[in-house]
């Protein structure tokens, strides 16, 4: 009781004092920016040097200009909103389902063996092949996109979770067992943190797969969103306009990754992959 003063103030790890890493970020972001600039410069040069006809691959500057023009249009932002809504919903559903099933299947040897063949059968089925089914069920509405997004993203997370669950350190797990932690408690306190890095990779994979599918579904089915705009630009012969939208898609991907990284940094500060960056 005497040692109360420093300790029992807050045993919960509140992320209050995370100011130090922020100082480092600019250098890192600058490098990342340099990478992007390098890529854009290459892109600019390819048509300028005539390696590819400018008519078919417009230079980066022209595309960026078109994108900036798009930024001024409400229609553009509505499309972005629609795509992001489909992306977010699809991703959430996929992650929730995959995490749930992943932990259930992963923590039982029987279930893992029994579902293996079915999982492996279903995984390689391309979402595009499911388009007729999706449209049959939901028409050309957001639900169709959602079904395709969820289907594709689900497997990404599931597999990662299965591997993560299998990676539990046996000494840690045994420790938990001897202290009487039941199956649920072990999943929560031991298995989940171990699988978390795998899960984070899975979510990062799935986040982009979901984005790719949101766009593809809109592109192929024609449900509203950025993908349909791309299809429209394409079929309208607006080449720079199309590449501007593709650029926008890529930028969304980058933003999603930045978001994921910051979540990861918070949740995985103890993990050696994040740890090693803070020390030294």
């Amino acid at each position, binding site marked *: 009781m005497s040692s109360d003063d420093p300790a029992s103030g807050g045993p919960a790890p509140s992320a209050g004092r995370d100011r130090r890493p922020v100082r480092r970020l600019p250098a*890192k972001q600058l*490098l*990342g*920016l340099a*990478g*992007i600039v*390098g*890529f854009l410069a290459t892109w600019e040069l390819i048509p300028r040097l005539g390696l*590819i006809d400018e008519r*078919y*691959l417009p230079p980066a500057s022209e595309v960026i200009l078109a994108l900036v023009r798009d930024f001024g249009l409400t229609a553009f932002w509505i499309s972005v909103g629609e795509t992001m809504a489909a992306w977010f919903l699809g991703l959430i559903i996929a992650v929730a389902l995959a995490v749930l099933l992943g932990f259930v299947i992963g923590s039982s040897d029987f279930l893992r*063996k*029994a*579902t*293996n*063949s*079915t999982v*492996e059968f*279903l*995984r*390689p*089925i*391309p*979402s*595009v*092949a499911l388009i*007729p*089914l999706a449209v*049959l069920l939901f028409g050309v509405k957001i639900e169709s996109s959602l079904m395709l997004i969820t289907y594709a993203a689900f*497997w*990404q997370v599931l*597999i*990662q979770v299965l*591997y993560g669950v299998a*990676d*539990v350190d*046996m000494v840690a797990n*045994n420790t938990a067992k001897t202290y009487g932690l039941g199956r649920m408690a072990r999943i929560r306190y031991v298995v989940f943190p171990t699988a978390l*890095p*795998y899960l984070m*990779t899975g979510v*990062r994979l799935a986040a*982009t797969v979901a*984005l*790719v599918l949101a766009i*593809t579904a809109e*592109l*192929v089915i024609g449900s509203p969103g950025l*993908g349909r705009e*791309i299809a429209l630009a394409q079929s309208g012969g607006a080449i720079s306009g199309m590449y501007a939208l593709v650029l926008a*898609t*890529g930028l*969304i*991907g*980058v933003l999603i*990754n930045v978001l994921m990284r910051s979540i990861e940094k918070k949740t995985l500060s103890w993990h*050696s*992959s994040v740890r*090693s*960056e803070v020390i030294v």
Partner: protein
Amino acid sequence: MKALKTLGYVLALPVLLVLLWWASTLGAVNFFVPTPAALVGKFGEVWFGPRFFTDVLPSIARLLVGVVAAIAIGVVGGVLIGSVKWLRALLEPTLEFFRAIPPPVLVPVLILLMGITDSMKVAVIISGCVWPVLLNTIEGVRAVDGVLSDSAHTYGIDGWARVRYLVLPSASPQIMAGVRQSLSLGLILMVISEMFASSSGLGFTIVQFQRSFAIPEMWSGIVVLGLLGVAMSFIFQWAERHILRWYHGQKEVENAA
């Protein structure tokens, strides 16, 4: 006895699901959802013929080339990016950018660059398959145990030896997770690569069936994809069991409670 048990594990759930499907098609018939019997009938008719050599085999060949190349690129790139911090900072946004580009949009650009060739299709497959391997490798490389890494350092195990003896084996469980993802992605991308600028191939055939409303044929193609997926995954799991013997051994011995 053991083989029988394995067979049971492999078949039990699929059989159950097929029964369910059969039961659900008993009542109303939907044009887009064939009965199991119709599907089986079409399956043999469609795929056991010249089509196997003209469409299926070339596709599988492209798929394999694509997946193998993707794994190689992913692992090499992942090790580089994972171990060199400034490289990671430099490339990550650009890579994320490319990762977010849907393959159907990428196809026209690739056609411009490479023409309507097999290598274009392989490039499409690679463009989608590298990501799971790359990301997992990067993460695996970053997560190398500190004590182990220190040990290697002090014994002068640097450069290539470090990669070979420390980084790769230690990241291998995670790399394998990535490879497994990319196998099925490869199949998906094979289909996508054949959806555009194509005139033959497994994916093309499936899409063609779909467009011409040959629905049982289309589903039979999807079954082919699924079976291919299962076959690849079983081969992969067998390989993994060998490559990661130390890993599974370590887990299993103590798991035998």
